[in-house]
């Protein structure tokens, strides 16, 4: 499934043009992206939580060359599935 399928789903649900549905999907993901860029997490109830976590600088090594290097401080996004969805997925694999 790609963004195009999401656009189709919205197009069918609401009386919008394809172009409008497309723009809205872009705006939705852009808004989430901007929120993360500001360091804020997003919780979608019934789905999961996207957390923005800060990682400090640390020493690392290039596994290819064995060279020591500093891994720069960075932000990462971790996703935690909601309990509800987790249970649904577990039922699926049972």
């Amino acid at each position, binding site marked *: *499934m*790609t*963004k195009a*399928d*999401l656009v189709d*789903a*919205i197009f069918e*649900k*609401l009386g919008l043009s394809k172009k409008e549905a497309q*723009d*809205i*999907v872009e*705006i*939705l*993901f852009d*808004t*989430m*992206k*901007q*929120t*993360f*860029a*500001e*360091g*804020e*997490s*997003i*919780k*979608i*109830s*019934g*789905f*999961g939580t*996207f957390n*923005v976590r800060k990682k400090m600088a640390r020493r690392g090594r290039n596994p290819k060359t064995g060279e020591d290097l500093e891994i720069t401080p*960075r*932000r*990462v*996004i971790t*996703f935690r*599935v909601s309990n509800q*969805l*987790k249970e*649904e*997925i*577990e039922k*699926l*694999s*049972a």
Partner: protein
Amino acid sequence: MTKSILIEKVAEKVEGLTRNQTEIVVDTVFDSIKKALMSGEKIEIRGFGNFRLKARKPRMARNPKTGESVEVPGKKVLYFKVGKALREAINTDQKP
């Protein structure tokens, strides 16, 4: 940020879209992702990330109280991989 605040933010940005319609959009997006996942599909949102189910193998574990060996059955877990554009965005537009 919660879903309702996300809905408000998106509604503000799209002219002519009501809050109710925006709510339908946001719900449709996450419901569609959920449905696709449940049918075993992988979801690729270019520039944002991918969602897919990963299989965890069954494994042997021990009951720490009794020392008894038990088999933990295999299961599926939801895995989100952050897209390249998003990973870069959170590391460049940083507010001081």
